[in-house]
């Protein structure tokens, strides 16, 4: 009976997609309340009401904008699936395989989002808080579809993965990443830290310390960073400072959502023609005249000052 229902649920999820995010929202709210009470007792500056309001409204706006343009993503994924070169069966092992593949796709997207300014413009808002708490997890983009970020996630449809499966595992991936945005949890057992993305690993990812810049891109499995050379562990002698290299200094929703797009527009307007593509496709901070720093330049300068290689 149970296995039949489970099979039916899996088939329906593969067909229509099961977005578990709305069902997780009450848990998000409850967890934030618990963390706020923890913060009030142990670390009152872990939260800032204005920052929290901005993060939560960014999350709400992201949900609304996502719902409004969901059809575009569904249409693209559906078109790819219609022209698929194979068909992946909807069985228990294919769900696991698709989940792992989607997490790797998330890693590729996320790494690109930090290394290519076009995608960074959409992703930067998630890093714009100088705080790191569960509300920061909800500081999500409003312009992800405009940036075409979804292309990194839907391509398996061309190889026969049902679009509903992609949507379902993507939602699970997103929900997993909620709980790792906290300072309330230190380090977890070594075996867990070795395989899974954890609060410690993701604190590094949100850091502005030169040692930590552009590291730990993982969504669920930290193994991608370990395998591809982008992993850096959190160190007790280098406490994490959160935010972006040039802190915004404002809680304005418009600025948080669109400031990098406005920066791109300004740079494209003023740059010579041959330099214009660089302001879209090269790393954030790149300029044709060397007047700003990329994260690689900041880290190199820091290493030189430290006497490292």
């Amino acid at each position, binding site marked *: *009976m*149970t296995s039949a*229902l*489970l099979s*039916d*649920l899996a088939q*329906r*999820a593969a067909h*229509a997609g*099961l977005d578990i995010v*709305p*069902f997780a*929202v009450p848990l998000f*709210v409850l967890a*934030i*309340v618990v963390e*706020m*009470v923890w*913060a*009030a007792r142990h670390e*009152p*500056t*872990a*939260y*800032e*009401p*204005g*920052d*929290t*309001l901005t993060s*939560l*409204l960014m*999350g*709400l706006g992201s*949900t*609304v904008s996502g*719902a*409004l343009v969901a059809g575009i993503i569904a249409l693209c994924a559906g078109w790819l699936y219609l022209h698929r070169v194979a068909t992946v069966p909807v069985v228990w092992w294919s769900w696991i395989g698709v989940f792992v593949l989607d997490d790797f796709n998330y890693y590729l997207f996320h790494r690109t989002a930090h290394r290519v300014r076009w995608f960074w413009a959409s992703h930067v808002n998630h890093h714009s808080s*100088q*705080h790191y708490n569960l*509300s920061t997890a909800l500081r999500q983009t409003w312009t992800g579809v405009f940036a075409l970020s979804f292309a990194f996630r839907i391509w398996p449809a061309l190889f026969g993965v049902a679009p509903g499966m992609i949507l379902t595992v993507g939602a699970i991936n997103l929900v997993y990443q909620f709980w790792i945005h906290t300072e309330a949890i230190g380090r977890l057992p070594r075996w867990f830290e070795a395989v899974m993305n954890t609060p410690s690993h993701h604190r590094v990812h949100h850091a*502005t310390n*030169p040692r930590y810049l552009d590291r730990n891109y993982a969504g669920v499995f930290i193994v991608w960073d370990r395998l591809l050379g982008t992993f850096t562990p959190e160190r007790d002698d280098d406490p994490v*400072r959160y*935010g972006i290299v040039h*802190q*915004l*200094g*404002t*809680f304005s929703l418009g*600025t948080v959502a669109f*400031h990098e797009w406005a920066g791109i527009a300004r740079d494209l307007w003023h740059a010579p023609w041959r330099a214009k593509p660089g302001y879209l496709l090269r790393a954030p901070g790149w300029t044709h005249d060397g007047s700003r720093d990329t994260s690689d330049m*900041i880290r190199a*300068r*820091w290493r030189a*000052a430290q006497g490292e290689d």
Partner: protein
Amino acid sequence: MSGKLIAAASALIARPDIGPALVIGGETLVSLAMVLALYLLARALRLGGDVRIADKAHAAHLAEAAVTGFAAADITLDRARIGALVRNREGRVLLIRRHGARFVASELTSHAGIRLDRHTLTLETGDRQFGTLTLDLGGEAQIWAASLRRLGAQDYAL
């Protein structure tokens, strides 16, 4: 997993009998109410607090955190410790101000927009997001105002 839970999940996937616009609208209103409730709770719990720059060492640390390798050589603090000016040996000057429960910094690159009024200095960095900041520097205001007049002048002297 129990059969009832699976059956409930199956029913929820379809979200039957109501239009998508109504679903989105309803979820948005409920979410907005939750957002405001969490904001009010954060205020009620007095989270964030009233952070200040503790001393010159703290200001130097904030400057180095803002600009990698920025070594403070000269520092002045606002009397209420809500902001500071930090200069390094190369003559670069960072303006630090409070932002919520954290601090932000911006480099002063020109003397334009700097105004002295007895013990206070009003400073504009040219960065609209950073805004304008007035520091009460006491007797140091005039000394710093005089030194900041040289900002941007080097470019013309080259």
